[in-house]
């Protein structure tokens, strides 16, 4: 079932001035319920502009965005309800924290939804559990937390609204490898449990390859590729032309194939690579023993 559909969306910043810039040009695609979509593209390719259209923060210059088959701008006064259905975590979301305690900050979204106090409490507890924030941390001021904890608190603030679609703009940017793995695994756990749709913008091809069901590639305001990771990352040279890379392990496997080793194409993660290489190495060792 299609949950989100983007039809012929174009967007211009500051139209009719010398600063006019076309950020999106006739973009169309659709996303199925329960998918995990990775969005990649060079800086300035229109990724951030695109995702801000999905929850109605930007209104397309032309074209429509459909949620459950209905135009989200059908009634501009009801656009807030769209934002509860399509949750958005911006880049460096820790800079949006403002309340006295982490708990109150996470409750900001649910409170705007006009939920009852007990329901807000449940939502906050559930969201805090997903991102691994303890009870003591909930009572602290958000400005006392560490960078990674702040990030997780901010993500919890959006998860607490229980959106059907969760959009994250570079959720792991600027974190150390441990913090990055922690957030990604927590998000995957959340996705597995809630079965809702997730859209992640990332510069880390490794993260995208490890998590995404499908990958959307943007270049200069156009969707140039949209398919399964194995398929998209098999087009390394084309991606390189757009200033993008394929995961490192995929690069290594491609080099091995160039040297004539019989390794399969479409290897995206370390585990897959190990599985592909082990039999090969065993065979070689076996060959030596025979000889």
């Amino acid at each position: 079932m299609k949950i989100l559909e983007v039809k012929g969306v174009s967007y211009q910043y500051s139209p009719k001035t010398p600063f006019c810039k076309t950020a999106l040009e006739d973009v169309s695609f659709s996303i199925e319920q329960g998918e995990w979509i990775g969005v990649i593209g060079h800086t300035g390719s229109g990724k951030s502009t695109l995702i801000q259209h999905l929850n109605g923060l930007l209104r397309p210059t032309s074209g429509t965005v459909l949620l459950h088959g209905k135009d989200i701008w059908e009634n501009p006064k009801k656009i807030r309800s769209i934002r509860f259905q399509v949750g958005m975590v911006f880049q460096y979301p820790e800079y949006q924290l403002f309340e006295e305690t982490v708990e109150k900050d996470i409750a900001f979204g649910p409170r705007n939804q006009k939920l009852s106090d007990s329901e807000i409490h449940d939502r906050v507890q559930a969201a805090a559990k997903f991102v691994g924030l303890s009870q003591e941390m909930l009572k602290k001021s958000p400005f006392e937390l560490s960078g990674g904890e702040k990030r997780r608190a901010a993500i919890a603030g959006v998860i607490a609204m229980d959106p059907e679609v969760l959009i994250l703009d570079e959720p792991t940017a600027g974190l150390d490898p441990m913090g990055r793995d922690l957030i990604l695994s927590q998000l995957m756990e959340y996705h597995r449990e809630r079965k809702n749709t997730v859209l992640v913008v990332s510069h880390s091809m490794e993260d995208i390859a490890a998590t995404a069901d499908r990958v959307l590639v943007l270049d200069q305001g156009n969707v140039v590729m949209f398919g399964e990771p194995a398929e998209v990352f098999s087009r390394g040279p084309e991606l390189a032309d757009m200033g993008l890379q394929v995961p490192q392990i995929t690069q290594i496997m491609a080099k091995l194939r160039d040297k004539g080793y019989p390794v399969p194409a479409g290897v995206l993660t370390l585990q897959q690579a190990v599985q592909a290489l082990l039999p090969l190495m065993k065979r070689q060792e076996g060959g030596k023993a025979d000889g």
Partner: protein
Amino acid sequence: MVRDITLGQFLPGDSLMHRLDPRAKLGLTLSVIVFIFVAGNFLGLAVMTGLVFLGMAVSGVSIGRYLKSLKVVLLVVLFTSLLNLFYGGGEVLWEWGFLRITWGGVSNSIFVAVRIIVLIFASSVLTFTTSPTQLTDALERLMKPLSLIRVPVHEIAMMMTIALRFIPTLLEETDKIMNAQKARGADMESGGILKRVKALVPVLVPLFVSSFRRAYELATAMECRCYRGGKGRTKMKILHMKARDYISCGVAAAAGAGVILLRIFITHPYL
């Protein structure tokens, strides 16, 4: 959106006006403003209007842009000219109770309206064609004599540069934070004044926090590059007055002299 606010916005270009020395432009604008007030009659005002129109013509900025800059002060123009309509003597045109419109009043109100509009145009020519950096650079040079009486001229100019430099950054930041809070369902577009002010808290708190963070980062970055204030500091781009700067100053001086002469010799009430 916040960033759509035009506040004396610089429009990059390569017109004659853009290439004038910023010191000359700043001086010219200030003297044009003074002479617009010196002009005591319509002929004098016409000379200054002509000069400002000339400046607008060589600025390469579309007339629509200038008209847009009027939008902010339209109310002021209407209000003052309406008030002036009821002052002044001469032949009575219309009377109702204590309200009385005379020829003098009509000419007054037109005079005041034109004066304000030309003032706005004159300052727009400066701000449209001069980048904030150029402007503070020019200010620093023109204020230099003040450093003799221990006015920290360089520090003032540096503060202005930094403040101007961070206006767009802070606007962008405000935009971002507003979007982030809107994405969490913050409602900033409806409700009474009290509700709207309250709705600003989720924007202002993060904005203050990030402004302080930026200030510390900038201070550290400046110290890392051995910034120690203005003492013994040299300029990378040294301003040079060229022929075009002297010519434009000459044109303005001629117009100014004309205004003074017209003020002295023309005494007709409606000219």
